[in-house]
């Protein structure tokens, strides 16, 4: 039973990788080969040791004993497209910074193949340089997410965020619609494909669109809202929540988002306020032109009403006192 579950998960992961490779191929042509004008210090080492094979769809295999050569097709899950790698945030790394030195030897040993992959938290966790991104909190959220709990952790960070090609979407896309579309693509790679989802569970899995037909104006919602806005537990201390919940726990109530005291509103407010300040500075971005305030966003009708009532009572009290002063005509008082 455990073995069959393992094989199912393995198949899913391989399939997910193959889907990602297709997506990469689509992006490949549009991306530069180097990151700006800079060239990685390890570009030559990477090329000699690894990318000479793993950076090409067709590589040449040499038998040094027999002096024979042969062209082979690189499997998609072992392919790293150099142009996309050197455009990612990890562009300046050597392959061997993350992969075992044993990979330098070819054919690769079985020990090398059993290496444990680093996770985001292994490098970015508990490092003051990355404190602002909250990797520790993201990791804690991920471990509570259904991606982790339902697959025994086999759906790792890399299944959505390939470290070879990773670029922060928010910074890469300047937010807006493109950000939402690209963010949702990450989910749809698997969740819009009934075959992939069918490999994960025996239940009759519906793919994304039919499941959202209950939403009023479904197209506008799917264009304007990230999947994770409803399917993760919202947390306004990290920019992108990672605790993906089981489908039946997703947000379904209109007022959960369209209300004055929603956590979503808090997240958006913090994000918009920080963006405005970073872009335009404190005076222009916060004091003079602060678009993060929204009319009625944090309004409590009860408190607004109670405030008016108490002010009204104060004025009424002053009025009564004034009437007494006029009627009784107190003697000449010296009083502050």
């Amino acid at each position, binding site marked *: 039973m455990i073995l069959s579950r393992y094989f199912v998960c393995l198949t899913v992961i391989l399939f997910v990788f193959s889907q990602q490779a297709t997506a990469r191929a689509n992006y490949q042509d549009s991306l530069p080969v180097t990151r700006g004008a800079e060239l990685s210090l390890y570009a030559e080492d990477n090329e000699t040791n690894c990318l000479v094979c793993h950076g090409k769809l067709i590589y040449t295999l040499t038998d040094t004993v027999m002096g024979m050569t042969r062209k082979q097709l690189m499997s998609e899950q072992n392919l790293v497209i150099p142009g996309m790698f050197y455009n990612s945030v990890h562009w300046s790394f050597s392959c061997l910074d993350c992969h075992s030195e044993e990979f330098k030897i070819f054919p690769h040993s079985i020990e090398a193949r059993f290496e444990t992959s680093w996770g985001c938290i292994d490098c970015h966790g508990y490092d003051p340089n990355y404190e602002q991104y909250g990797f520790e909190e993201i990791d804690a959220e991920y471990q509570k997410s259904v991606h982790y709990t339902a697959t025994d952790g086999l759906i790792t960070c890399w299944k959505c965020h390939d470290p070879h090609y990773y670029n922060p979407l928010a910074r890469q896309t300047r937010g807006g619609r493109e950000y939402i579309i690209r963010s949702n693509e990450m989910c749809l790679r698997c969740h819009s494909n009934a075959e992939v989802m069918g490999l994960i569970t025996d239940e009759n899995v519906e793919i994304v669109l039919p499941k959202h037909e209950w939403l009023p104006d479904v197209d506008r919602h799917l264009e304007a809202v990230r999947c994770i806005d409803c399917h993760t537990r919202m947390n306004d201390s990290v920019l992108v929540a990672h605790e993906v919940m089981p489908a039946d726990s997703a947000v379904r109530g209109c007022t959960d988002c369209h209300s004055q005291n929603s956590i979503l509103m808090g997240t958006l407010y*913090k994000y918009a*306020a920080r963006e405005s300040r970073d872009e335009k500075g404190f005076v222009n971005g916060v*004091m003079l032109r602060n678009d993060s305030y929204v009319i009625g966003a944090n309004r409590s009708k009860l408190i607004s009403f109670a405030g008016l009532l108490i*002010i009204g009572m104060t004025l009424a009290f002053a009025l009564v006192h004034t009437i007494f002063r006029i009627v009784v005509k107190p003697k000449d008082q010296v009083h502050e």
Partner: protein
Amino acid sequence: MSKSFYHYPAWVRLWHLTNAVLCLFLIVTGFSMLYSDPDNALVVKFQRAVSIHNVCGVLLTISYTLFLFGNLFTSNGKHYLLNIKGLGKRLWKQGRYYAYGYFKGEESPFPVSSERKFNPLQQVSYVGVMYFALPMLFITGWALMFPEFILKKFLGFSGIFLTDQFHVILGFLVVIFLFIHLYVSTMGKTPLSNFRSIITGWQESH
């Protein structure tokens, strides 16, 4: 026979005037933001109200800091030192005077003098406003400009929502204080004499 004495030094009058103008702007724009909706701007257009409110809030923080220094390094600070002992009794005495004795022509139990600027009720409310309400308004107001420092959740509510509500409630307290402050100021020798004092600095007394 009444005589006048110099009661409000120039820096106090200047600070009081700045404080008053900024508070008025803050109250008007605050109300405008709180009760406006997209179709009805109430007093000022929402985005303009936000800008004015923020600028006045920052200026008031600066003016308040100067006031604190003034209280720390001049004799004005002594008027804000509460003597807890017998305070309840003194408050009752002053309250009774406002509600009853005043109309019966009784002497003010705590007449204003160069040594005593505030009667007990005034002292408690001024200390409350200057040392509690205003600092808390500054903290919550600044927090709303730097929302990443606000707790994400507290008692099941969004931290921003609670901070904002606390700011609004304190704002209401200051408005109530302002109305009482203005009304009590009309209870001087004549209804306008106290207003004259805070402009000229000279206070009339027995």
